[in-house]
């Protein structure tokens, strides 16, 4: 019974040892890096066909069968972060706190990588001079008598020892914020035409009305001809939340935030084509919203004809004009008239706004002014604040842990035949080499301070210590 309990404890101990070994996060980090790289290279969450279109069949099969197409949203990926958090927690208590904050105690000075001695001619003033010297070099000091020997403990930048804990905490807060956003947040996209209103499905009582959408374009000349690049999109909207309406402009890089914390961003835009249709002079009503989007088809009832709407070309949306094609002076629609599945012309028809054309079998089509629509992304992320806070904490921790080199000194004063001798040992959180040069200067400086007799003024060795 007893040995089983002992074995169990050993297993738990071993597990905790593994989790608190710094090699553990290193291995997890490397796996995380590899999985993230796969997620960078392989488009995520696409249709299987997308991979067959992009890659040779064998590679596409590999991606799909190994689920590399969803690697970033997979349980193993998520588990890596959980593993990091668990190991970080274990490590904090088993390793970081005990090792990062060494206690004030008598130690074997000679066993330290950085150690040395200074012989003193200052007699009884040795202790005081040593303390003065170290204080001038920004060491916070404490004294302790152990078995009749006077010990002095010095700390420089001790606060920076907390850097690791702060950085680890920052990461944990970020992870919590991301998790909260994933659990309780929502997002979506609204396509709203001029004058229309759309409601946010996930939050009853929240709706947005588009008063007017404006897009501004700029011509850019290239070796292959001119293209038109959008220079500004602007949506003048009214946002209604729980009965209260607010008027605002949403432009790229300037989102709008509602009182309840839902953000609206300018994401895309476009123009809907509008046409009137008549047959033998009588109006024919069109099904749908009466707006055509690229790729839409209009079937002409009672015939085997259809109209395939391509796009709007012209000053309202010059970005649709193919490179090298001159920009039409007025807006026009590009469309195909299809008869028995065969286009009736070799090029798309271009129908200027206001013009009527015959599309066969008694049908006539009149182009009406296009209508703009805005694409607004909305999002509510209750974890966002935590992510921001975590990021700030993480950076603070990084600066504390990585920039500063906390040093701890163990100083013992003993007497030998020639008089008092001050033995000094040092440790840092980053090994010995990083402090080697400064430690040597510190010892030299201390030696000079203790060189003069106790009635003579001590040499001020400040400038030489850091020369």
């Amino acid at each position, binding site marked *: 019974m007893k040995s089983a309990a002992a074995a169990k404890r050993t297993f738990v101990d071993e597990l905790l040892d593994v989790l608190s070994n710094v090699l553990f*996060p290193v291995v997890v980090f490397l796996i995380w890096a590899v999985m993230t790289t796969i997620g*960078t290279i392989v488009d995520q969450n696409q249709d299987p066909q997308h991979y067959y279109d992009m890659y040779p069949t064998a590679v596409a099969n590999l991606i799909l069968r190994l689920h590399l197409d969803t690697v970033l949203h997979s349980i193993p990926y998520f588990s890596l972060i959980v593993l990091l958090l668990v190991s970080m927690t274990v490590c904090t208590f088993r390793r970081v706190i005990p090792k990062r904050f060494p206690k004030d105690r008598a130690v074997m000075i000679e066993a330290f990588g950085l150690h040395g001695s200074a012989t003193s001619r200052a007699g009884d003033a040795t202790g005081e001079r040593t303390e003065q010297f170290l204080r001038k070099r920004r060491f916070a000091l404490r004294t302790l008598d152990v078995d009749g020997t006077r010990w002095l403990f010095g700390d420089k930048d001790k606060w920076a020892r907390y850097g690791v804990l702060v950085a680890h905490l920052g990461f944990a807060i970020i992870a919590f914020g991301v998790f909260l956003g994933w659990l309780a947040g929502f997002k979506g996209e609204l396509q709203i035409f001029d004058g229309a209103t759309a409601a946010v499905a996930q939050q009853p009582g929240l709706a947005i009305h588009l008063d007017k959408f404006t897009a501004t374009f700029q011509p*850019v000349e290239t070796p292959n001809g001119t293209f038109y690049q959008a*220079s500004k*999109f602007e949506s003048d909207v009214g946002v209604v939340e729980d009965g209260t309406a607010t008027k605002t402009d949403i432009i*790229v890089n300037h989102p709008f935030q509602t009182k309840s914390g839902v953000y609206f961003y300018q994401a895309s835009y476009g123009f809907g084509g509008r046409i009137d249709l008549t047959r033998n002079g009588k109006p024919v009503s069109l099904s749908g919203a009466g707006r055509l989007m690229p790729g839409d088809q209009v079937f002409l009832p009672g015939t085997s004809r259809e109209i395939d709407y391509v796009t709007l070309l012209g000053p309202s949306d010059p970005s649709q004009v193919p490179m090298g094609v001159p920009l039409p002076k007025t807006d026009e629609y590009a469309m195909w008239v299809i008869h028995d599945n065969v286009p009736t012309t070799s090029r798309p028809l271009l129908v200027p706004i206001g013009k009527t054309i015959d599309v066969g079998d008694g049908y006539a089509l009149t182009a009406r002014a296009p209508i703009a629509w805005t694409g607004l992304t909305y999002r509510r992320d209750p974890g966002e604040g935590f992510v921001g806070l975590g990021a700030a904490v993480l950076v603070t921790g990084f600066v504390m842990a990585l920039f500063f080199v906390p040093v701890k000194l163990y100083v013992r004063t003993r007497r030998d035949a020639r008089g008092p001798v001050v033995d000094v040992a040092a440790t840092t959180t980053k*090994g010995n080499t990083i402090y080697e040069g400064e430690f040597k200067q510190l010892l030299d400086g201390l030696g000079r301070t203790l060189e003069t007799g106790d009635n003579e003024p001590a040499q001020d060795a400040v400038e030489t210590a850091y020369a």
Partner: protein
Amino acid sequence: MPDYSQYNTNAQALADAHVAAYMAWYHVAIVLYVLAAAVFLAYWFFRNRPTAAGGAILATAGLGCQMASLGIRWVYSGHVPWNDLYGSLSVVALLSVALFLIFGLRYKIWFAGPIVLSVTDALLAYGQGWNKGLEPLVPSLQNNYWIYYHVPVVLAAYAAFLIGFSTSILYLLKKHDEDRALAGAGKSVGAAVAAVRPAWLDWLDIVPASGALEVITYRVIAIGEILLTVGVILGSLWAHDAWGSYWQNDPKELAALTCWIWYAAYLHLHTRPSFRGPRLAWMSIAGFGVVLFCYFGVNIWISGLHSYK
């Protein structure tokens, strides 16, 4: 807003007087950096202060020319010059040389000059091919102030990793040299003769002991990791404004995260004395490969929201 509609071809765009002006300074900078690299190479052999000072002065002059080039481009385009791959490569090169000069003054790493300046020069020479003249900003780069901070901070992180890469290569050479000397010490005459280093490697005398070099690498990578963290955070603030969320799993974000993870692993390995040494140096060298993938691979081969060429 400048008028961009004046050019009919790219050749014409590049022949424009304003473009010619910033390119001229850019070319002078390339030449000065080549000369600086040559002088620092000479420093390996002469090993005296005037030679190191000569290299530093040439590199500083090159830095001045690059600043002039970027400044002219900024004025004539009416927007920050790091909106495309050409501009950002120029900034990486500028920051790498600046950081090298700072570390040179602080830690006397002038011996790394030939490596740092050759890589910088290669970046600049390659960057010319991406020069498209003066173009307007795409909407996501407009109306925001993040572009002033996010891009330079991330590029400064890359510059730090470049320096870390250079000092890690030198670390491996120095360590090899030290091991050879150690292997010869106290051995037979034959072993000692075999351990004598070839004369052309005598310049390794000006390189500090491998332990000290490892500290320098750690210091510069620590700065790089802090800058990368801050840069990614600034980027996510921008993404929040521009795309509606602080993180989109865009290839560039993911690749930057990979760099961050890689160097976080490096810093953790460094905390344990037993894991320091050549292993860590290789990790820093491979880390720069990850940086190159993030920088070039994602900009050029993988299209996403961040593919500014």
